[in-house]
């Protein structure tokens, strides 16, 4: 196999992986604070991207006004979601909460394309389509910028966990009752986590929307984000970063190398295979804490 092609696949894969990782950072954020795996993250990304497109097209706002506005809308939506739906599920079995988020995913996948149109919409960030040449390597500009922005945001969220509010969140994730007893407002921390996670989903939806257009298929990013979150260990942001790169690499290389052999379609199955292998060999992921249950 051609070395240049392989290197090109690998590099593009790394940046694509970083873009996936941004979405799963939201999943990890929610899991860390409230112990819930949010299976609606893909739909939130789709909703965020649609919000930007609708604000830009229907109200004629410029992209740089529409995106912060959409972030604000989605933050409010995330907080409201926690307040209206998730908080009422406290004390219910985990399986019920997971199913609630699945219900939300299905609901959003119906409502958003249903009311705002199912056709693919263009989301123009002003990134030119011309590829970047690094030596002989050919890199996709949108993916390069998307990966860079994602990397920045994930690093920012690692820093965030060292800020005052981040420490509050870490305390909440460690022990909700104990945080309560020292005066931390646990509900507010969880609500903010949902809001921030919706914002991350929006950013990721916008970045993906810029590369492939905005339609319902953005919600399919969920399975990739889940694979990354599980491989990284569900409660580690650093894990997300590294697992994201691994998943992106694996996917890109599998598509490039295996597709000609088996006849296409490997892209969609790599994430599933990674989930399964992680559960088989290292159920708690690369950086996850082993969960000890007390009777």
């Amino acid at each position: 196999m051609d070395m240049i092609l392989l290197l090109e696949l690998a590099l593009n894969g790394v940046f694509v992986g970083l873009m996936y990782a941004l979405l799963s950072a939201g999943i990890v954020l929610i899991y860390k604070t409230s112990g819930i795996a949010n299976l609606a993250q893909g739909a939130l990304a789709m909703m965020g991207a649609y919000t930007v497109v609708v604000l830009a097209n229907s109200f004629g706002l410029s992209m740089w006004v529409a995106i912060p506005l959409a972030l604000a809308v989605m933050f409010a939506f995330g907080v409201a979601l926690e307040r209206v739906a998730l908080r009422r599920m406290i004390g219910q079995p985990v399986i019920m909460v997971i199913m609630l988020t699945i219900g939300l995913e299905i609901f959003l996948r119906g409502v958003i394309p249903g009311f705002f149109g199912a056709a693919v919409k263009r989301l123009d960030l002003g990134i030119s389509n011309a590829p970047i040449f690094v030596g002989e390597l050919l890199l996709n500009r949108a993916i390069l910028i998307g990966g860079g922005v994602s990397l920045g945001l994930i690093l920012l969220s690692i820093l965030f966990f060292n800020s005052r509010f981040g420490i509050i969140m870490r305390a909440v994730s460690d022990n909700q009752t104990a945080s309560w007893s020292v005066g931390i407002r646990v509900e507010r921390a969880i609500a903010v986590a949902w809001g921030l996670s919706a914002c991350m989903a929006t950013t990721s939806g916008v970045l993906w929307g810029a590369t492939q257009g905005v339609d319902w298929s953005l919600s399919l990013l969920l399975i990739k984000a889940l694979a990354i979150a599980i491989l990284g260990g569900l409660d580690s942001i650093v894990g997300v970063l590294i697992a994201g790169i691994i998943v992106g690499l694996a996917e890109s290389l599998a598509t490039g190398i295996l597709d000609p052999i088996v006849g296409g379609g490997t892209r969609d199955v790599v994430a599933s295979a990674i989930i399964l292998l992680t559960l088989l060999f290292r159920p708690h992921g690369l950086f996850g804490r082993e969960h000890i249950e007390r009777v």
Partner: protein
Amino acid sequence: MIYRRAGISFTRYQDERRLWKLPTDRWAVIVIFALLLVAPFLVDRLFVVGYLLPLIIWSMAAMGLNLLMGGAGQIHLGYGAVIGIGAYASVHAMRAGLPFELAMIVGGLASAAIGVVFGAAALRVKGLYLAMATLAMQYIVDFVIVQVPAISGGTQAALSVPRTSFLGIAIQGDRAPYYVALALCAVLTLFMLNVRRTSFGRALAAVREKDYAASIIGVDPFRYKLLAFWVSSFIGGMTGAVLAVCYYRTISPDQFHLDLSIQLVAMVIVGGLGSVLGGFLGVGLILFAPIVLNQLIGLAADQFGVAIPTDLRAHLPLMLYGGLIMGFLLLEPLGLAKIYSNIRNYLLVWPFRHARQ
């Protein structure tokens, strides 16, 4: 009112052990079953083939999934793939010359074997991971079915089901498939009603409530979770065989996608976790609500002259599924079955509410 009882009180142990304890319930079951038996002669064939047959077959699938989700408390997001495995395995077995009765069991075993492999991977860790593993199973099975021409009969090709018979009755025309499905569904319903009274069913309930508590009283959670997976996948596989032979007649990979799994989960939640009756109610609501709603909207659009965008109408089922799942989980987590039993409990002692047990 219709029950004329002040609470349920029995004078003999045999009475309390019966499957349906009240005479009213027994009569209701007999009447409904009799109606289902004569339905093909009473109503239009389109109604039987288009509504009753799917209702019966999807109820079988929902019961299988409900054993796992409601009975053992394990989530499964890839039940569509389980049904798909059963359908493909049994159709291939029939094409190889096996009779339908055996092919159905082959389908069940294939589903159970593959389902257990995925279950075993995930059961080492808790609920949430199981959701991911079964989701991964859905994608991997889809991929394998589509990519291996020996299974799917080529990427775009559909696999036709050969002519076959069940216990000497040729499955063809409109009525024979209906009766075959009805008979199998009746057997499965009796099995599901009885399973929770066995030690197996009670062990599953113990595991569902708290798995380490179950292990303290001597129920091995891992073993029973795997058994639940096995039984539930077996039922799913057999349903797949029935689905292929009695309903689809030609199977293709896109009939067993993630959408089907989500629809089944919706059926189980809306109907009521752990309830057999709920399975039927949930399937009825999920299957027919989108159709009814779509027609209502069409009617309203004609009446008031409002143009409803096609995108909106096309996405109506998804909105409805999601909305129903969320609504029921938030407002009535035990689903339609619980609503039914609330009404029934009220009427049982009506008008003497204070007489309730």
